[in-house]
């Protein structure tokens, strides 16, 4: 399995460093963004393989982020939604908004890794 370049967009610094430590420990490269606006810029400039996107953030939240992705026709990275809402509805909504996968908080380390590596295996769509 190859090393992936993962963009983590989350407003919680501790969650970002947690995700970074999990992924870097597994040999992946991580770039971090503390809000949606900066995250979107980094996604465009860095072209990551996978984006881990917190759906609930101030100013530009995950939904707005995904709307912009659709609008601008960005197809490169795999999008994984991350949220504290784990109801079937929120999973469905995330998929409809364009997310390829969904991880709910709190997540187990392996679940997060599995989701990232599963996305990285497939061809970019």
């Amino acid at each position, binding site marked *: 399995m190859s090393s992936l370049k993962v963009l983590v967009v989350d*407003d*919680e*610094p*501790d*969650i970002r*460093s*947690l*995700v970074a*430590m*999990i992924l870097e*420990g597994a040999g992946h490269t991580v770039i971090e963004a*503390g*809000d949606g606006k900066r995250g979107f810029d980094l996604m465009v400039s860095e072209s990551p393989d996978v984006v881990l996107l917190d759906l*609930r953030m*101030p*100013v530009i939240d995950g939904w707005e982020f995904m709307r912009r992705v659709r609008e601008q026709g960005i197809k490169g990275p795999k999008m994984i939604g991350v949220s*504290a*809402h784990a109801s079937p509805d929120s999973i469905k909504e995330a998929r409809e908004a364009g997310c390829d996968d969904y991880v709910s*908080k*709190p*997540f*187990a*380390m392996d679940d997060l890794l599995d989701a990232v590596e599963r996305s990285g295996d497939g061809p970019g769509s």
Partner: protein
Amino acid sequence: MVEVTTYFSAALAIGFLSLGVLAAVQWRRRHDPPSPYISAALTSLGLVTALGVIEDIVGEQPEGVEIASLVLFMASAYFLLLFRHSILPLSGPARVLSLAAILAATALVLLYPLPEGENPTYEGFEILVLFSIIAVWGACVGEPTFRFWIVSRGRPLVQRARLRALAGAYAALILIIFIAVFAILGHNETVATVATASAVSLVPLLWAAFAPPQWLRRAWRAREEDFRLIEDLAIYAADRREIAQRALNRALRLVGAEQGFIAEPESTLAVEQIEEAEVHRLMAARPTPGHSQWREALGHRVVILPLRPDGGNEVMGIVAGPIAPLFGSDELYQLSRYAEVVGVALARVRLIEQLRDQTDSNEALLHAISDLGEGFVITQAGRLEYANEAYLRMTGYSFDELRALPSLLDLSVPEEREELAERLRQRLAGDQVSDHYETGLMKKDGRILDVEAAVKLLQTPQGPRIISIIRDITERKRVQAFRDQFIANAAHELRTPITAMVGFASLLEKRRSQMSEREMDTVSDALNRQGERLRLLVANLLDITRLQQGKLPLELEPLPVNEVLEDVLKSTPAPEDKSVAIDASDDLTVLADRLRLEQIITNLLTNAYRYGGESIAVQAKDDGEDVVVSVSDDGPGVPGELVPSLFEPFSRGEDSSRVGGSGLGLAIVRMMAQAQGGDVWYDTTNGLGARFMFTLRQP
């Protein structure tokens, strides 16, 4: 030769004696107290007359006859007085005095016998003796004559007639006796004959007066009965007691009685001249209820008549008295017929009263439902028939406006209308449909109310009706939505620290051996930070929950503001790059709970440390009524779009995650300020930086 006068005298004697015997028989039959007296009086007078007749026939006076005549004559006076006493009681002294007068007059005659023989002549003392006899007798009989007449005035018709008949009878007696004496003393045979004959003719009148025959009683009643129709109309009064009282008074008038009652087994409806306790005793003494007859009970002679033909327990009791000592069968018949009419009237009013009670309680029920704020509606096939005030208030329509609608379904929200109409059809068809549901109701002003309806089909004599109780649950829904949102927010806020802590913990478990020193520090810092965040969040959530439930006990006491501010600043000092200036006069005191006041100030200060500028000012002022405390800084201030929801739980600015906090601080501040009788707001008039202000009451 026996003269014609003697025959008439004999007839007179027979008349008196017959009346005496009749009265005695009556007394034997009915135990009527006055009867023995009248019997004795008339018998005495009869004997006196008879002795005179014997003397006439025999021609000479046997020894002692004269004396016996006189004694009997005077005795008749005393009996007549006693008769009067049994109807209109005499005072003790009057009785003694009259008895003494009678005895004295009798003794006088015994001591000084009057002259005898044909055409005796009286002289000197003898005239005085004769006069005293006549005077005493005349007084004993004449006084009742006037007394009966005087007392009769102003009495009800039948009583008046009875008393006047008695007065007439006494007058007739005096007349008879004086005529007889005149006849004896008169020297003209023709005059004596005419006088005696006229005395005889008065005898039947005596009987009519002492024991009035049916036809006479009917005549007396006639005028009372004339009023009957009018009074029966008057009986249609609304109140049972009033009817009973009127009916009783009329019954008493009808037979000339004075005491009576109308009673049920448990209560007395009307009484006249008799104690209620006495009525209860009489009722209890009744051997067989529902049977009308005379009886003597507890010293009363009473007739008890059932008021209902079926012999129910309501009765009318008429107590015999001195003026109406006896009732004939015709009077009993009249009374029992009257009692039945009264019974019907009472039953009718009882029905009306029951109906009115029921209507009253129904209306009270409707009013009670209105008071509870529940809408109450009755519809027929969807169209409104009745709506209470609460429903009208709820919808904003007037009754007439609602009445004009073809169906109340027009008020339901369009998307539910079809379903509700179908449900109504099923309900009217008798199908089982849910009785309770929530729906939307469009008010007149276009707003939509969330309501809960409880609906029931009611079969009435006028056809099927639907009754609905409508409850406005908009506020409940709002509270529920707020609570749901609060719980979702709280869960979300809890997930972040939990995610971080669980994640770092498992990272430690799996990768500790491969971790650098720097990584270990990052992990332990994050664990501490998130743990503290979790602790604060849980503590705040508990505070809010207690405040919402009103379970946070407050101990209000006068507190010096300055001191409290200094204390808070000591326990929550400003970070190194910031400074706090306190401006409050020493004598300023507030009525507050110390712990809660400190928490308010701490939360506002912490906010200023996190989001505010470098210099922070805390000011306390007396605005004349309350103490106003402001916490301001020279930072960027609260973004305009955040201000309206600033004090709502979990409303936070964009950078909040960087600076920590639970999102509950200001919500708690507001709840605590309000719980202590004050309030808090964000001062939008402050151009530079943020300024929070709160008020507190003064002691």
